[in-house]
């Protein structure tokens, strides 16, 4: 896949820390990510990966440090920033007792999308769920949920997409569909993806980050990374324990 990132900075993280009681989930994390890049974030369980995503998506406020996403501060400009980002998680983030169409219509209203009906129909077609648009989400398979989750994340035409273990629990066919959907929007979005799958994460990324105990162990662009050394570095963090 051709990398399309520019010299503009999409993500600027400076000395970012987040504590829960005495536990430091993030400890002085700093890095810059160019616009259009695809960052894969790796690390053992409890390394602070999900906390990093939660801070960058404004769901959680940082304890110290700053982060700017798409040029907007995650604390000061949180409401404006939310219009520019989308999240695809291993959790579908959808209401099980609403239909696929009702879910997308609801989130379209929440984001102030101007052409709700057209946009919802367009996305349902693109994720191949148009024929199931009236069915309750609780009747969907894991792969269908993930496809609808992608449609939800793209509703408001975000500039940056955060993916929190999006391949978790998907069968190979559903993974192929997700690959295709990511490829469709890859050229005009910046991505940050959490993954436990080193091969998949390295295949997709333009930049890679390893977190362990809330700290940055490695951050570099893909062309500077030797896959074998990278995997060895990652494995050395697995025994480091929880942040």
């Amino acid at each position, binding site marked *: 896949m051709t990398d399309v990132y520019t010299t503009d900075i999409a993500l600027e993280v400076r000395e970012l820390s987040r504590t829960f009681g005495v536990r430091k989930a993030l400890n002085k994390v700093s890095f810059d990510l160019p616009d259009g890049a695809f960052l894969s974030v790796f690390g053992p369980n409890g390394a602070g990966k999900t906390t990093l995503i939660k801070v960058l*998506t*404004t*769901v*959680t*406020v940082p304890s110290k440090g700053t982060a700017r996403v798409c040029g907007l501060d995650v604390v000061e400009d949180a*409401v*404006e920033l*939310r*219009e*520019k*980002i*989308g*999240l695809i*998680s291993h*959790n*579908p*983030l*959808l*209401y*099980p*007792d*609403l239909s696929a169409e*009702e879910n997308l219509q*609801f*989130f379209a*209203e*929440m*984001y*102030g*999308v*101007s*052409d709700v009906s057209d946009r919802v129909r367009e996305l349902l077609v693109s994720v191949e769920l148009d024929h199931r648009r009236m069915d309750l989400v609780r009747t969907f398979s894991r792969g269908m949920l993930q496809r609808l989750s992608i449609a*939800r994340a793209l509703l*408001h*035409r*975000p*500039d940056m997409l955060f993916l929190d273990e999006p391949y978790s629990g998907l069968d190979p066919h559903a993974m192929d569909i997700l690959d295709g959907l990511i490829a469709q929007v890859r050229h*005009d979005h910046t991505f940050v993806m959490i993954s436990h799958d080193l091969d998949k994460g390295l295949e997709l990324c333009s930049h890679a980050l390893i977190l362990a105990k809330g700290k940055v162990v490695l951050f570099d662009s893909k062309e500077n990374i030797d896959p074998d050394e990278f995997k060895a570095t990652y494995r050395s963090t697995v025994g480091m324990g929880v942040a």
Partner: protein
Amino acid sequence: MAAGTQARPSARSLSWRQFKAILRKDIVMELRTKEMVTSMGLYSLLTMVVYQIALSQSGSAFDPRQIAAGLLWLAFLFTSMLGLNRSLVHEQDQGCLEALLLAPVDRPVIFFAKAIGNLVFLLIVEVLTIPVFAFLFLQGGGYGGAWWMIPTVLTAGSIGIAGVGTLLATMSVNTNGKDFVLTVLMVPLMYPLLLAAVSATTAAVLGGDGSVDQFWAGMGGVAGYDVIMLLAAYALYEFVIGA
């Protein structure tokens, strides 16, 4: 397509759209599942029956109308706790609360939409309960006040329960013992409201000289509580939901 390319609605019109979307979603889901109203309605009606059994041996000299208002408000308070927890637990299913927090919505909009939804469901349960209450407790001496007194105090009291209850349910939803936490927080905070509402409702039930003055004195307490606590809930909600 980037987020900035679509026409953005004004902040006020977007908030109104978001408010309507959350309220409509809650009502549609409740109409579909009937979880909250069914469980709250059954609980409230059974409570009335239990009260009646408890008072069945009190003798003919005892006028149950003297304590009927207190029994009614206790039933509504405990009934509301059942529904309040469920309304937030729905949001937690499959990470929906996180999806809501990711949207560019002012947190007080979420508060007011959830509180109005809870108020509607509580009022429905009250409308179902009042005839049973009248049948069981007002047969002896009858209803002494003007017809409009009961709907007025029930609506005003329910606004306080729904408003404060929504705030407290949001605080407790991420705790381990959410039912216990909600009860422990809610009962002491509801004390002033219950005192005023029971006074106004007793005046409405008993009627007679001075009952209108006692009713309006009680209503003053209920209205004052509603205003103060709703303003406090409005101010605190952003902090509470982001914690």
